[in-house]
């Protein structure tokens, strides 16, 4: 019994040390076959979770569906934000989800960590508001909850729970490693920056409801921004990310900008350690798909232009007939009646 237990612990330890990277839990998004995660046993079967995450999963089974939606949301948003770049956030069907790019300390990794921790906070908060979760704002584990309960003073905002859950679930891998390595510091920083992108962009909305609707009595609350907004904020931070290195100040290790001329980064900024590859050529070993076969914009001078996108290899041009929807009639949901319009478009694809 004890030997078996020891063996398991050892195995776990080894697993924890060598399992590829902390954003593997994003693989949850790929597990559409699992159905709904509603039983504790399912947690063990989930690929991509480290042991500590499995424990959290078991303790909070009801939240896991939201986490999975968060993972999907992160991937979708990443692909939207990077649709015009050489690295277009394409996912693989294997682990790690984004290929090796994310296991190195690159800018792209910084973005993926930030967007994924933000998306978990976002998805869990949404699940709270729709009543899928039972603990949420009144959970005693979350800081800021009133001791007297819902009837006396209401509960704290759901976002507090969402952020706290994101902190415990997403950060657990780095925390379990200890704050020694520069990668762990970078990941933790970027995770927090992602959550800050939500917290610092909350909209304050107010309603007056005093005598005759006057502002004698006014109630204000903070509303979560749409996730597209969060994605845009993090993308901006990606564009202005700071390259850092680890330095020891006193007994603690901190990340400081490599170039001392630069302003030190804030909590909201993304940081990275290694420069990114150029993502031009197909490199299956590192999970880089390369830009061959990608569409590009002939007229653009930016990164989506053919010159940059194709890394100077040139591009094919072909005329294709595109069937497009036009003069459509929409309902607010689910119903579209369109005519089909055909038009000829010039398509440019990288060699």
């Amino acid at each position, binding site marked *: 019994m004890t030997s078996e237990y020891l063996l398991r612990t050892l195995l776990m330890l080894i697993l924890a040390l060598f399992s590829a990277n902390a954003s593997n839990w994003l693989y949850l998004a790929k597990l559409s076959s699992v159905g709904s995660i509603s039983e504790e046993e399912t947690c063990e079967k989930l690929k991509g979770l480290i042991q500590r995450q499995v424990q959290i999963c078991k303790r909070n089974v009801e939240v896991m569906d939201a986490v999975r939606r968060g993972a999907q949301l992160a991937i979708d948003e990443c692909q939207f934000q990077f649709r015009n770049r050489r690295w277009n956030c394409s996912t693989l069907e294997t682990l790690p989800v984004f290929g090796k790019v994310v296991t190195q300390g690159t800018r792209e990794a910084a973005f993926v960590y930030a967007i994924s921790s933000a998306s978990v906070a976002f998805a869990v908060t949404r699940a709270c508001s729709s009543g899928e979760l*039972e603990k949420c704002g009144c959970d005693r584990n979350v800081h800021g909850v009133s001791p007297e309960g819902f*009837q006396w003073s209401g509960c704290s905002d759901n976002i507090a729970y969402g952020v706290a859950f994101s902190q415990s679930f997403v950060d657990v891998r780095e925390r379990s490693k200890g704050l020694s390595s520069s990668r762990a510091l970078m990941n933790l920083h970027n995770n927090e920056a992602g959550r800050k992108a939500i917290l610092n962009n909350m909209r304050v909305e107010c309603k007056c409801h005093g005598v*005759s609707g006057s502002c004698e009595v006014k109630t204000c609350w903070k509303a979560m921004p749409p996730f597209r*907004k969060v994605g845009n904020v993090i993308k901006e931070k990606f564009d202005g990310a700071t390259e850092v290195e680890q330095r020891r100040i006193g007994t603690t290790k901190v990340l400081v900008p490599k170039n001392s001329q630069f302003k030190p980064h804030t909590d909201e900024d993304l940081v990275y350690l290694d420069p990114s590859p150029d993502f031009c050529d197909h490199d299956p070993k590192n999970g880089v798909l390369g830009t061959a076969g990608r569409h590009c914009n002939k007229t653009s001078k930016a990164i989506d232009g053919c010159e940059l996108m194709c890394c100077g290899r040139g591009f094919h041009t072909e005329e294709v007939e595109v069937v497009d929807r036009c003069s459509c009639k929409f309902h607010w949901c689910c119903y579209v009646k369109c005519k089909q319009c055909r038009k000829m478009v010039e398509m440019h694809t990288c060699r």
Partner: protein
Amino acid sequence: MAGAIIENMSTKKLVIVGVILLLFQVFSFLVGGLIAPSPTTAVHYLATKCVDVRKHHQKSKWFMPWGPNQCEKIRDFDEATVKMIEANDIVFAVHIPLPNKEMSPWFQFMLVILQFDIAFKLVNQIEEGAVATIDVGLAYRDNTVSDWIEMAHSIEQRKLSCNFTTIKSPENEGRYYECDLLPFMEVGSVAHKYYLLNIRLPVNERKRVNVGIGEIKDIRLVGIHQNGGFTKVWFAMKTFLTPSILIIMVWYWRRITLMTRPPVLLEKVIFALGISMTFINIPVEWFSVGFNWTWMLLFGDIRQGIFYAMLLSFWIIFCGEHLMDQTERNRFAVYWKQVGPIVFGSFCLFIFDMCERGVQLKNPFYSIWASDVGTELAMAFIIVAGICACLYFLFLCFMVFQVFRNISGKRTSLPAMSKARRLHYEGLIFRFKFLMLVTLACAAMTVIFFIISQVNEGHWHWGDYTVQVNSAFFTGIYGMWNLYVFAIMFLYAPSHKRYGDEQSNGDLGVNSGEDIQLTTTITHVDGPTEIYKMTGKEAQE
């Protein structure tokens, strides 16, 4: 008003009274700041998208977003498109409150705000002046197993005022419009434990219903209710204040009836102020805990309205009675010009309130702001009330100015007057200036705290304590106006030194001096004769 207590009180006693009142004032702030939680709570709800799978939508089917018997859900509308579900089959379900919680009568009221998340699509934009037609039902139950009982059902229209802040280009598809908050529902009592909202957005292309409202992604609601803790503190405060004001009122009226002359106008107005304060204070809200009285919200508005109107009238009449220009007033009719705007303004606001909260008694989803005519009507009422308020303040300022002009006029002639006249005028001036000062201080406090509570985030951390600024504002200001009314009734009550003087013929100079103060501006009551009598006596002495 004849010689009031305030004139005959020694400065020492006045200071003692002031300090005691100030202590109560501080106490009322602390009660709100330290004991009570914040006054209201806002809870976010995200509507669950249920699918009505029945062929014909019969009545009396309620869709639960979670828990046992939950509806067939869809995650998003792309899923619906794939499954060929129509817009008319989609029901947005919201359960109030969230799981494992219960609503309580202590919440007093519940209002719900509606927000649409509408994604921008280049080909499917929100049309100019788009109106959403909402078919909504509200049901309640008091335990988790019984059937839902319908409380209200209505078809409402809400204007979508949304704007898209970035350029309308293909890259920005999928961003959300920024839409104004829509008032959705207002219930004046929370008598049940669980509430359920079912919202449909029926589409009818022929009648142009719900066409051109863009691509709705989600419906979000925000439910606002008063915190139970705040309600309890508030009730406790009212229960404590009612007897204190009532006692001083009885005491005040007894003093007046003990006098030989009938009460003068100012005395009556002060008494009326006391009555209106008591009317607010009486904690009838205790009943709302046991009974389902939805009209409580409206009743509270009316009570406050009466008090405000009374307070404003009191200021005008107080100024008028201290004008010292030898004109006879003492009749309510003299003040019609000044009181008229107050009455008319309050009446306008009353009509407006009846149109909004009155109709909401019948239909909790009604909002006067939802229709164009309603908006214009409401604006008209509010503007008229605003004009009345401006008119009133102009009158008041003019009157205060007149009083001050007369005071300075009297000041110069004071030394030349006989002692009795001088004391009489000095008493008047002191009485006026004192009230002026106190009133200004109270008004300033109200305004300052109002601004603080508007600007502030709602609570301050102060060491280990969290001070709820908003609650402190409510209890503090409420306590302050109670103390104000209390102080006026106490300090401006007729002085008891008057009794007995009538027989004693004023054997002391001081006494006769006091007596003369008691004769008032209102010369017709007993003024001139008495003054002449007294001055005659003084001359004899």
